[in-house]
């Protein structure tokens, strides 16, 4: 039987520069999506897996942790190592050397430096090195007052954050299909590298949250270029727009040059950090405040473009 349910639209929130307000905005969107009435609900994803903050605002009842196993790291068996040093020149990460805690030549892999390439495994003449798979984090399916949240915690310092983002997004998409949700809302990581690319994959629209100032504009340009490269339509919203009006004008000029719509401007207001302290989306904490009203407009403009 053909499935006639339209696929959920995927909205990804990005910024380039960190700390521009992605998560506060996303939490407000989650709250607003739950007001849209039956059949309009959304599934939420926190794709900033190494600094995951969306759950601090949405305050879910935390689901069971599911293990995320990433790549492998090399490990030397000290009983087998003959200290020949054949592994050292093949390591491009300076990760293998004589164990500093021993006085013989038995080698040791620094797990912080190891990239997991296994070159040393093949170079070792006595097969003293093996690859050991690593648990690199956990992911969760949790329930918030506004809908299902898929989120994760990458263990500090680990690799493969892009893979973990892909994994939580897959689960969110399946849930969206199952519940016939209309939107998958993705709170993206800062930057433009691997986890951002994973967060963008399959997105129908990118919403870039920027702030006036040289850094905000510089990084807006980089993240917009990234979205353009992957042919994802984008819109911009300006947070703290009144803190530095000259910067807001520069962003508007740049957006016009790029034929990219500005879907709204959020004024600076103390309600935003206060809502964060409360662990409540601003649109619920202070629905009549200027920032909350601005965010409501942005939500309406953005969803209109998402379904256009």
């Amino acid at each position: 039987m053909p499935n006639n349910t339209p696929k959920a639209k995927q909205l990804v929130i990005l910024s380039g520069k960190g700390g521009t307000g992605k998560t506060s905005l996303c939490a407000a969107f989650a709250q607003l999506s739950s007001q849209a009435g039956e059949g309009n609900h959304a599934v939420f994803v926190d794709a900033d897996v190494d600094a995951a903050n969306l759950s601090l605002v949405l305050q879910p009842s935390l689901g069971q942790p599911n293990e995320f196993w990433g790549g492998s790291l090399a490990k030397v068996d000290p009983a087998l190592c003959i200290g020949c040093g054949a592994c050292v020149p093949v390591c491009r990460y300076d990760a293998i050397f004589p164990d500093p805690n021993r006085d013989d030549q038995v080698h040791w892999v620094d797990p912080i430096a190891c990239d997991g390439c296994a070159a040393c495994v093949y170079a070792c003449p006595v097969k003293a090195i093996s690859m050991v798979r690593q648990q690199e984090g956990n992911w969760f399916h949790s329930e918030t007052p506004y809908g299902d949240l898929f989120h994760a915690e990458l263990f500090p310092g680990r690799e493969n954050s892009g893979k973990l983002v892909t994994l939580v997004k897959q689960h969110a998409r399946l849930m969206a299909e199952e519940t016939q949700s209309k939107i998958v809302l993705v709170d993206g990581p800062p930057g433009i590298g691997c986890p951002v690319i994973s967060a963008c994959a399959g997105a129908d629209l990118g919403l870039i949250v920027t702030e006036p100032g040289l850094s905000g504009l510089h990084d807006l340009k980089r993240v917009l270029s990234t979205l353009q490269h992957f042919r994802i339509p984008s819109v911009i919203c300006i947070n703290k727009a009144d803190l530095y009006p000259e910067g807001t004008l520069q962003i508007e000029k740049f957006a016009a040059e790029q034929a990219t719509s500005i879907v709204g401007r959020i004024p600076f207001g103390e309600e935003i950090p206060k809502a964060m302290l409360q662990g409540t989306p601003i649109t619920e904490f202070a629905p009549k405040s200027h920032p909350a009203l601005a965010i409501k407009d942005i939500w309406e403009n953005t969803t209109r473009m998402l379904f256009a």
Partner: protein
Amino acid sequence: MKIAIASGKGGTGKTTIATSLAHSLAGSIKVWYLDCDVEAPNGHLFLNPIFTEQVDAVIRIPQIQPESCTLCGKCVEVCQFHALAKVAKKILVFNQLCHGCGSCTWNCPEGAIVEIPNPIGVLEAGLTKHGIHFLQGVLTISEPMPTPIIRQLKKWKTPPAQALTLLDAPPGASCSVVETLRGADFALLVTEPTPFGLHDLKQMLGIVDDMHIPCGVVINRDGIGNDQVDKFLAEKQIPVLLRVPFSKELAEGIAAGQTLVDILPDYRQKLQHLFEEIIHLVKVSYAK
């Protein structure tokens, strides 16, 4: 000495603190500034270096010589990153999956692989008007891997022994932050007194603990949140080395590309004092 400036959460003011510290010290000591936030490098907007050198940051990717390749598939087998695949009568290379580790090259029994440099970004160097040696890496749009660029940036030039090197880290708490922190004598963690700031600061402390790097904290936008960060730091006996209160004047100045020293000259002395405290903490940690 090498000081890394990191935060976990983005936008807490790493670059503000790093550039302001560089600015405040440049008159008295040799300062090298390495912008390791290669996805979103912003230090140059505040220190305005004149770049005089540029080189490509590259990953060495395999190129299979078809005349020597016997299609034995050893390279596909040894690659941990699925960057090589055997299809019909050819070995395919997926550049963006390649980590440039060289394992396929060494393991090819026919010597049929040569490595060619694949640029994934650039390294740039120059001087600022205050005499700061400024180096940055810039990841090319659509390239996924920042870490090799950070590694190359840190190896590119050798500062004189007595110079202070400031490493401006990327946000987050994954491998690119670890690469920035490697070899640092001290980690200066910039946070804000909010639940987000505290959560991500804990992630960062997990890393500096693992790496045995002594650390101290700067609380930026002091006053906007609550006392949970202070309580946590007191409990863990981690020193707060500087507080920068939230003010519209500072926010505006930073937006316009000014360092704290440009906006409020008092900060020159405060930051010099911060540096002295860091030297003291590094000495204490080496004595242990």
